[in-house]
């Protein structure tokens, strides 16, 4: 039964992927990409990887659709017809695809218990992480403690990507704002009321996701994205000017740096206290308390950086004047 669900979902995924490629209307492509992410999230749920599914749903289907749509407001809606011949790209795709398929021949079968991935470090994570890190959610222990280096890299990647987009956009920025074309429903009573009810709940949920990540699915990445989504909803329906006044660009830039600095700072403090970089055991007398503090601070850093970066991307997209 579960296999049937997997096959159906994967089939949908292929259909949506083909539809995205065939689609010339970029707006429809963005929506199809959202569907694609939601389907991947469903596949992750059926693989019992709820943390990944949560991230995929929040980032892929949620915030990235919003960001790409606000990019689309700056460019044209339809894809330009290609003037190149299709032969070379087709060859490249075929060769790459053939290599990838050839590569899968060596891979262990799906869900093979003897596969290297289940033999290497995974048994230790599953058996010892509760004694070593003390988190009921193994994914959080792996993400923030065992593989703290990787997560630090991810935060720095998000930060760098945000800086790169801001640098690109700053060359076309105009003084006067005009995002009024994004929605003329701004002060509509139904939307306004629903948004006023929902936005506090969304922000509360983001806090829950941020601080409940030790016990259930969630963590800094998802919480940051949900936070940003709540503020973006506010900007789109209630008023972007209030958001601009609260989150000035300077403030947002400081925030996104703060998150990264908090993360790396925890690592430096552990170094100064005589442990390895990002070894949280030394943060407190008790080993597990140290781990708790370390993971709490690191996740907070992730959340702050993600929120600030997403929000500043949205705000700077909406600041750029529409190109004629």
């Amino acid at each position, binding site marked *: 039964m579960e296999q049937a669900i997997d096959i159906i979902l994967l089939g949908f995924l292929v259909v949506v992927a083909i539809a995205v490629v065939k689609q010339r209307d970029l707006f429809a492509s963005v929506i199809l990409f959202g569907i694609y992410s939601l389907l991947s999230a469903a596949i992750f749920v059926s693989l019992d990887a709820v943390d990944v599914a949560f991230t995929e749903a929040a980032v892929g289907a949620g915030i990235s659709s919003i960001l790409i749509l606000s990019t689309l407001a700056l460019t044209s809606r339809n894809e330009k017809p290609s003037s190149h011949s299709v032969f070379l790209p087709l060859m490249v795709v075929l060769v790459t695809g053939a290599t990838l398929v050839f590569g899968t021949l060596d891979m262990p079968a799906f869900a093979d218990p003897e596969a290297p991935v289940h033999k290497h470090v995974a048994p230790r994570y599953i058996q010892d992480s509760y004694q070593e890190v003390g988190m009921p959610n193994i994914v959080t222990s792996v993400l923030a403690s065992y593989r703290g280096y990787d997560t630090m890299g991810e935060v720095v990647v998000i930060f760098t990507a945000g800086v790169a987009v801001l640098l690109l956009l700053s060359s076309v920025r105009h003084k006067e704002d005009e995002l009024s074309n994004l929605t*003329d429903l701004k002060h509509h009573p139904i939307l306004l009321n629903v948004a006023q009810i929902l936005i506090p709940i969304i922000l509360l949920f983001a806090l829950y996701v941020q601080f409940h990540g030790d016990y259930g699915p969630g963590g800094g990445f998802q919480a940051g994205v949900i936070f940003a989504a709540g503020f973006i909803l506010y900007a789109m329906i209630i008023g972007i000017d209030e958001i601009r006044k609260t989150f000035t660009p300077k403030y947002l830039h400081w925030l996104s740096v703060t998150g990264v600095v908090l993360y790396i700072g925890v690592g430096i403090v552990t170094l100064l206290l005589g442990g390895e970089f990002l070894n949280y055991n030394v943060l407190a007398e008790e080993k597990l308390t140290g781990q708790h503090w370390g993971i709490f601070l690191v996740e907070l850093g992730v959340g702050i950086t993600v929120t600030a970066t997403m929000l500043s991307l949205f705000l700077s997209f909406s600041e750029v004047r529409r190109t004629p």
Partner: protein
Amino acid sequence: MWELFILYSSYTLLLLGSFLSLTFGLGLLRFPDFYSRTHAAGVADTLCAALIIFGLSLQSGFNLVTIKLFLILIFLWFTSPTSSFTLASTAYRSGYGIKNNSSKRAE
């Protein structure tokens, strides 16, 4: 006996929800104009979500999962009518006609 009754009512609700969802999906594809399609999608969102979540909460019994499911339902009842309304209202404001817009859609 009671458990069996709960189980079968849960199955009935789930199947009914899925069937209605399928019908509304068909309506979404087959209805002639934009507004009736939006209507089909909006009704599906509220009614099918309710049926499926009631079915699931019967399966889970009364615990934290049920409360979470009902919170999801309330969230859906807030958001999906609003989004259908926003779609229809935006279409209407941007001058999208009610009749014979199949040619207009192709633009």
